[in-house]
């Protein structure tokens, strides 16, 4: 099993550009999450999904959209990137609502 994978690993964007981050898991997990990690801030929840076709806002959702069309994939979109969105983005998944979360390796995003 690959676990949780993220694509791409690193990306540079110009302000105003758009992009989509892909998260895929092969563990048949219902619950999937997107976090961002900034220096000194720990991990902050952007959006999450409790099952295929569902999404919900987390702590810092502004400027991001998500979709969960397939159970194994959770997409994070930036419609118009801003320098404040420079961060490391982590995807995670878990089987139950209170169990262990499994993390992907992260995507480093730099917005110029």
């Amino acid at each position: 099993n690959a676990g949780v994978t993220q694509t791409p690993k690193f990306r540079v964007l110009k302000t105003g550009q758009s992009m989509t981050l892909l998260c895929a898991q092969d563990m048949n997990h219902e619950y999937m999450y997107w976090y961002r990690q900034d220096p000194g801030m720990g991990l902050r929840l952007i959006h999450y999904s409790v099952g295929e076709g569902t999404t919900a806002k987390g702590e810092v959702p502004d400027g991001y959209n998500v979709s969960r069309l397939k159970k194994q994939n959770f997409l994070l979109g930036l419609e118009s990137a801003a320098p404040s969105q420079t961060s490391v983005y982590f995807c995670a998944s878990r089987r139950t609502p209170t169990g262990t979360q499994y993390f992907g390796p992260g995507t480093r995003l730099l917005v110029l």
Partner: protein
Amino acid sequence: SQQGEEDPQALSIQEGENATMNCSYKTSINNLQWYRQNSGRGLVHLILIRSNEREKHSGRLRVTLDTSKKSSSLLITASRAADTASYFCATDAEETALIFGKGTTLSVSS
């Protein structure tokens, strides 16, 4: 907002010493988890302790939970250089997603 707060923010010790990190949280929880993050990597789950448990062990790790004080501690015994990493506590308060603290950065020198 962050639920957990780790203390200290940074900890430097010698190999063979014990490392203790603390976590305080604000609201009632279902369970509390500890994760490790090596530099530039994703988070790896270490241990989960449920709200009705007081202590749990896993190898060189010992976790305690005091729900009356809303606090937890992670003890790593006989630290090794490979334990150098950031350690995060995370809580499940609303059964939606784990809420993470800002982490403790542990440096173990040989």
